[in-house]
Each structure stands twice: as C-alpha cells, then as structure tokens.
C-alpha cells in the first residue's frame, strides 16, 4: 500500500492533457484591462487559443498575432512584431499594455523580442504614440518548455516585474489566484471581504462572465488595471494560492521588495480553506469572523450528508493543472474517497518534492499513483488494458471520451470545461467551492446510479 510518483514511461503523447506555454501567457493577457497581447508566431497559436477560451467561457477575447509566414520564418520576423504593435495601437486607442508572447517558432529562429521592444520604446512609441501610456512586455514562452501552466506562471511574473513599484507601502495583500474561473475569483473576494482584508487580486477575471446588454456595449475582458499592477509592489504580503501558477511572481516580489510570500495551499476543500484563512489572519492580524465560522458550518453540514453514505471508498482519477489535481485529491481524502490516480500533464521537476505530494507519499494507506508528464493514455490504458476500476473521474473536457467510452461518471472541473454549461461561474475554492464540488460529485454519481440502474432505489429515501 503506497503512493508512487513516476514519469510516464512512453516518450510520446496520446491525447495531451495540457497545451503549451503561449496559451498560459495569453490567459494572463486577457486578465489585464486595456491589454491585448501579440503572440509572435504562426496564426494557429492564437486562433486556437482564442477558440478554446471562447469554448470554455462562451465569450470572445481579443488577442493578436504577428502572423508569422514563410518569409519571416526564413529571414527573421522581428519586423512583424514592430508592424503588429503599430497596427494594434493605431486601431485600438484604449490599449495600454501589449505583452509580446513568443512561441516555439520565433524562439527557434532567435528573434530578439527584447531588442525589438527596446527599439520600439525608443522609436515608434516616442514618435507616433508620444501622448499615450504604452507598455510592451516580453514574455518568453517557447512551446517546447513546460506547459500552459508554466506559461501562465512566467507571464504573471513578467507582468508583475514590469509594473511593480514600491512607493507607498500599504496594508493590502496581493492575491495571485492562479489559473481559475470567475466563480473562484468571486468566492475568494467574498472570503477577503468577510475578513475585512483589502486585496489586489491578480487577475480580476470575474468580468469574463459578461452580459448581453440592450445597447450591445458589453465585452468580455479582465479588469486588473495598470495601477493594480504597480501597486503589487506596495503590498503587505503576497498570497500565491497555486504553487505552479503565480509562485514566480511571488518570489520576484519577495526578492525585489522583501514582500513576504505565502505560497499555497490551493484552498480547495475545507481544510485548505481553513489554512488559507489562518494564513490571512497571521499576516494581516485580522480575526476570522463568525460569519465564516457559520459559512464553514454550512459547508460541513452539506458534506456530512454526503461523505459516509455516498462518497466513501469511491475510487477517483484526477487530471489537469497540478495545484488543482493535488487540491482535489486532498479534498477527496477528507471526503473518505480514494483518489487512485493523479495525472499531471507536464514534466515539472518540482512535483516530487512538493510538500503536498510528499505528504501523500507518506500517508496514503492504499495504492495511489501519481504520473508526471502524463497524457490521457495513462488513464485510458489503465482502464482498458490494466484493469483499473474507477467510480469517478475529475478533470477537464478534453478527457470526455474516456468517461463516455468506459461508462465512468465524470465531473468536469478545471480548464477547459466546454462540454458542460456554465461551470466557470462556480467556485472550486473556498467553503463555497467545497460545497459545490462535493454536491456535484454526489449528483454525478447519483445520475450514474440511475443511468446504470446500480442501486438506484437507494435514493428513494435520503
């Protein structure tokens, strides 16, 4: 009985769990107000990422391409960046922040994006856009390094590094949420409000869930402003909720401005949310109010209805973003469930030493596998050819056919969840997230019991 952490033993990828770094940088870009990123590479690197954002959120987000074509690939394409910046700024008068996001192609051909930015800062911006505040930010996100997760991490750091200034230190905290949904941001802001803590939330993406208005004026875009970003340097502390999605920025702020960094735990489940609130209390000195005691109690009340009777012993496979996967596994354990297989979609060498992973290795009392650099075949092959039995899958929509073909109920969680309606609206973090997750897991199992006529009569009384 043990928890084993290993690498996928094949070299190739059958059905990838993650996309590549530029997607993470693009997710950061759309979180910033008055910002349109330019992805320096082929057009597909933008078009498909915009598509998957729009599939997940059922909204459109603006991102531009330098449209690398054959000539650029042969002779270098720095000129395409210069032209892209000029065209973009000329046509979008509100744009102030322009991340320049590199890709595999432009990293391989060796385009000097930092040099181009310097040139543009001294030339084009002074000459043509002198009256305008414009920030060009290089983000090096070659696709052959890391994954969408590290791309996000790199991009948050690059943005913070560009803007952060320590001018008027204040009592705010920086809250780096990681790659989350509008529902998560809303829940986190709610917790902070109950604690009476002012926070600089990176990124303010509640507005991704935007309306249709009678005058047709609504657009979907993040709301983190330049002022917010500058202000990250004045904070009392930085809370990076996800170790792999924001930690680099927290480390930067700590090194540069000696702003203490609190990294994790991802506040998924009751226990991790408790830790988050404790950390907040310790850093700010603000007490945890009765309202949250009550809210926690409501959550525990809901969970108590589910755990022993329905969730206990259920064997779960979880895949997706590492902080999400680990957080969900921890919560599942609290719910008496058995996460038996965790799939992390990239090869980050820090995973084995992650204290949460170490704790799993030391304490799990049944067979659990954690696979790094995993693809979906690691899951499917175990089910199809190695006799893995599962009661539930937790993960994003790209794994949907495993659930469908092997008749295993699946709760969509993470990014992207395009094959279920509106999931981005609900939290997975905080006490609210704990309720949502547990109840959705239970309802998913209930629907499966009825669908398969597997003790469906159990629910006659409950």
């Amino acid at each position: 009985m043990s928890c084993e952490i290993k690498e996928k033993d094949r070299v190739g990828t059958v059905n990838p769990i993650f996309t590549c770094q530029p997607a993470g940088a693009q997710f950061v870009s759309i979180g910033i107000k008055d910002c349109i990123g330019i992805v320096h590479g082929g057009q597909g690197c933008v078009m498909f990422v915009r598509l998957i954002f729009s599939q997940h959120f059922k909204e459109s987000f603006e991102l531009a391409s330098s449209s690398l074509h054959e000539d650029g690939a042969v002779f270098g394409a720095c000129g395409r960046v210069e032209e892209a910046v000029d065209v973009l700024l000329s046509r979008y008068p509100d744009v102030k922040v322009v991340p320049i996001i590199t890709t595999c192609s432009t990293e391989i051909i060796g385009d000097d994006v930092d040099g181009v930015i310097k040139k543009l800062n001294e030339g084009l911006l002074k000459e043509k856009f002198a009256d305008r505040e414009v920030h060009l930010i290089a983000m090096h996100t070659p696709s052959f390094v890391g994954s969408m997760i590290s791309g996000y991490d790199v991009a948050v750091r690059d943005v913070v590094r560009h803007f952060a200034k320590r001018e008027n230190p204040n009592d705010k905290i920086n809250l780096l949420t990681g790659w989350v949904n509008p529902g998560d941001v809303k829940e986190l802001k709610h917790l902070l409000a109950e604690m009476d803590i002012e926070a600089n939330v990176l990124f303010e993406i509640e507005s991704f869930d935007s309306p249709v208005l009678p005058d047709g004026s609504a657009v979907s875009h993040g709301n983190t402003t330049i002022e917010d970003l500058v202000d990250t340097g004045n904070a009392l502390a930085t809370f990076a909720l996800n170790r792999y999605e924001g930690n680099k920025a927290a480390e930067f702020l700590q090194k540069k401005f000696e702003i203490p960094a609190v990294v994790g735990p991802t506040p998924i489940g009751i226990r991790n949310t408790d830790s988050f609130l404790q950390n907040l209390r310790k850093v700010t000195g603000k007490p945890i109010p009765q309202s949250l005691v009550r809210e926690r109690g409501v959550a525990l009340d809901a969970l108590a209805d589910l755990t022993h009777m329905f969730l206990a012993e259920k064997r779960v496979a979880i895949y997706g973003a590492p902080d999400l996967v680990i957080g969900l596994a921890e919560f599942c354990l609290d719910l008496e469930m058995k996460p038996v297989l965790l799939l992390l979609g990239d090869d980050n060498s820090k995973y084995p030493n992650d204290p949460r992973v170490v704790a799993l290795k030391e304490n799990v009392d049944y067979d659990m596998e954690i696979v790094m650099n995993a693809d979906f075949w690691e899951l499917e092959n175990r089910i199809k050819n190695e006799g893995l039995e599962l009661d539930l899958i937790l993960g994003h929509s790209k794994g949907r056919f495993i659930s469908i073909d092997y008749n295993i109920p699946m709760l969509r969680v993470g990014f992207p969840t395009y094959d279920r309606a509106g999931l981005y609206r609900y939290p997975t973090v905080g006490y609210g997230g704990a309720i949502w997750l547990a109840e959705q897991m239970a309802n998913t199992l209930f629907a499966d019991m009825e669908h398969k006529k597997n003790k469906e009569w159990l629910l006659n009384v409950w």
Partner: protein
Amino acid sequence: MPHHEFESSKVIPERKQHVVIKGKGETIADALPQGYLNTIPGSISERGCAYCGAKHVIGSPMKDVIHISHGPVGCTYDTWQTKRYISDNDNFQLKYTYATDVKEKHIVFGAEKLLKQNIIEAFKAFPQIKRMSIYQTCATALIGDDINAIAEEVMEEMPEVDIFVCNSPGFAGPSQSGGHHKINIAWINQKVGNLEPEITSDYVINYVGEYNIQGDQEVMVDYFKRMGIQVLSTFTGNGSYDGLRAMHRAHLNVLECARSAEYICNELRVRYGIPRLDIDGFGFEPLADSLRKIGMFFGIEERAKAIIDVEVARWKPELDWYKERLMGKKVCLWPGGSKLWHWAHVIEQEMGLKVVSVYTKFGHQGDMEKGIARCGEGTLAIDDPNELEGLEALEMLKPDIILTGKRPGEVAKKVRVPYLNAHAYHNGPYKGFEGWVRFARDIYNAIYSPIHQLSGIDISKDEVPTDSGFLTRQMLSDGNLSEEVRNSETLRQYTGNYDSVSHLREKEYPTFEPKAAAGA
C-alpha cells in the same frame, strides 16, 4: 472598383483592397477583393495556420489513421476536439490524437529519434490501426528533421504499416489554405496509385472536398449508394486511408469544397484522366441538379431522378414552411471559404433570405469570384475580415443573423446578432434534402428566439409588458403572414429526428446488376 474602406481600417489602407460592395450592374470583372495575401500583423484576423489547414481540416477527418503531429504538444492539443467531423468507426480520429512531445533538448539535438520511438509506440498502443499520418509543425520544420526518412525507415522495418508524411508547418502560407494545398499535393504524390482497390460497381467515384461535418458525407453517400455508385474514397471526411490510396481508379471526381481540395482533382485529371465535376450538396435545386449530373455521367439518370422525387416530396413542404417565415431576413455569411459560394444564392432562392454580406476567412480570389457572382447588388464582400471590421460591418448592415465560427459568433452575440455555426453547424448535417431543412430550421430558431427578443429590451427605460409570461417563435414569426400561409395544410415544420445520420449506417441498399453480367 467599388472598394469600401472601414473607419477602423483607415490606418491600414491596404485593407481597402480586400473589401468591395457589388454595385448596380457590376460583375466579377468590376468587383473583386484581394485575397490570400499575407495577413497584416496585429490586425486580429480570424485566420489559422498552414499546419491546422493540413492536419486539422483535411488530414484528421481520415478515420482509420493514427494522426501524429511532430512537435511540442500544443499544436496537437489545440486542434483536438474542436471539430464535428464524425466517422462511422466510432469516431476514432476524433477521439485520438498524437504528439511527439518535442522538448527543449530535442530542439537542440534533433527529434528524429524521438519521432521514430513515437511511431513505434503509437502502433503498439493501437495494434488494430496500421496507417499513420505524420504532420510537421513549425518547430520541427525549423530544426530540419527529416520526417520522410524516418517514415521510410519504419515502413521498411514494419512492412504491415503505411505512413503518410505531410510537411506543412504553421508558417507555410498566409492561412490554413496553404496547408490544404500542401496536403493535397503531398497525398497525390506519395499515396495515390500505390494500392489497387476492389471495384464493385460499373460506376465509381471519388467524393472529394467533403469532411463529414455532423454526417454530411454519410447523407450524400447514401444517395450515391441508392444509385448503385461505388464511392471509392472520400477526401477526406469519414474516408479511409487505403480508399484514398486508390483514388486513381475512379471514373469521376465529384468535388464539393473546391477551395480545399480542387488541387487533387486537378492533378487526378492531369495524371489519370479522371474528370472533375463540381457539385453543390447544399440546397434542393443545386443538389438535385448535382445528383442528376452524376447519374447522367454514368447513364443512370433515372436512378437519380427517383431519389430526387422521393426526397423533394418528403422534405419540400418543410423547407417551404421555413421559407415563408424567413422571407427577407438579412444574413451575413462568414464561413471559411467554400460555403460562401455554396450558400450565397441558394439560401436566397430556397429560404427567402437576403444575403447582405459574404466574407471569407481563408478563401482565395477564386472563391470571391464565385461568391460575388452568386450574390445580389449591394452585397458587401470582405476578404479575411478582422475583428473591428467585422463589428463595423455588423453595425452597418444590421443583419438578422450571422453564419460564422464559434468565436466570432460570441462577438456577434454581444451586439445582439444571433449566430449559427457555419463551420461545425448547430444541429446538422446541413447537406442533403433533409439537411437543408435542418439548416432552415436552425436559422429560424436563431432569428425568432424569444430570448434574443428579450435581449433588446432595456428594463430601465422601456415600457415592459406585464401581461405576457412567454412568447413562442411562432408568435414572433407569424404576425405578418397571410391567413393562407399560416393555416396551410401542406406546409409543416421539420419532422425529422434529432439524429438523422446514424440509421444510415445500418441501411441495406439495392443491388444493381453489373453491366458486364447483364450483357452476358
């Protein structure tokens, strides 16, 4: 030339050459936008890349193939599960995609060894599949991996497998269209003619430029089978790899999407003397005409006519129910390439709609010639509209519906223009007689959505009726109809099933005696 300049594109004046409004009495020799030129960087175009044009659009619909992209995982992930091209083998090609997972060390030291390991692994994981397509990506093109050599090596070591190599990196051309071209030429050069098929009919076609979106191909193949025609291959939706190796044995190439697949038809004509017949699978009259022509080509026109009669009798009253209610509604057409001309005229003729604009994402001037030839005066034609132009045009034209992709559809939603997915369809298939009614039904449902009607009301200003708990589509659509139409006993709404395709897979077809046997 009647060019139109968008306010939003004044700073990129070359864009003016890409936009025309067809004026009174003007022809395609007067009005034609530029097309298939390099994209203006930073303009926020909708175009994809040549890798996706090759792998995602044309390669992947091939159903019995391991589709492996040689590069980092992103290209593979991004182009996976974003299409609705189904297949009758439980959607193998939709479910499985493969990446060689190129990492930094491979960029530095080369990734050929990695590729070979990948190929062997993939065949091992899926022992029932013996065919593979390998797609180059930007990264592996730039480091110069010799994919062909590796494929040859594996084929020598594993004689039971066959591997196709498509070298079409993302940067190879102004849009995905560059990839369509590259894979057409690569396929005919590498694979056509190296397998001899079993010929089971006197009438043998390749069905080309058809991607089985929501079952389009299966609907059309049903007609062909009812006519006793052997469909040797479909390029490529629901098509099999080995069928496509035998394309040289067909008597006729029946071509739908000339944009993406005319290259291979042209080459097949030049190299093997197979004639090319361009057809329209959309719309009653064009489809009937197309089936009839195919029948005539083989001397079996009466078989086509019998199908047309049955299908028209079955579905025309339903099409006309919608036509009465869609009369005069304004449509923006913004498909990828071919649907702009497939649909431009016939949705006016057969659904009563008014096409106010035709855009293309990746079309060439040839597509705009066809599109502009088929639409009326005053129609706005835009080559590769960018984000701001698209919005400005919506503001200018105020259409009742836009037929476009998922993401631009979300933009349209915000300015309260309902959208229908032109690429993947809402509830297709849209080809075939029944499919065309489904298309009309989907357009009707979008335009007369009670929710769409609500979105125009400003509760802070407008007088909101307090005595109505609901509206129906028909309450919205039937107000101005004549009594006769409203109470017609012949017209009716769509009566088909949610799934109009799966039953075709179990269908039995009549056997026709071969000519040789009949003559003996």
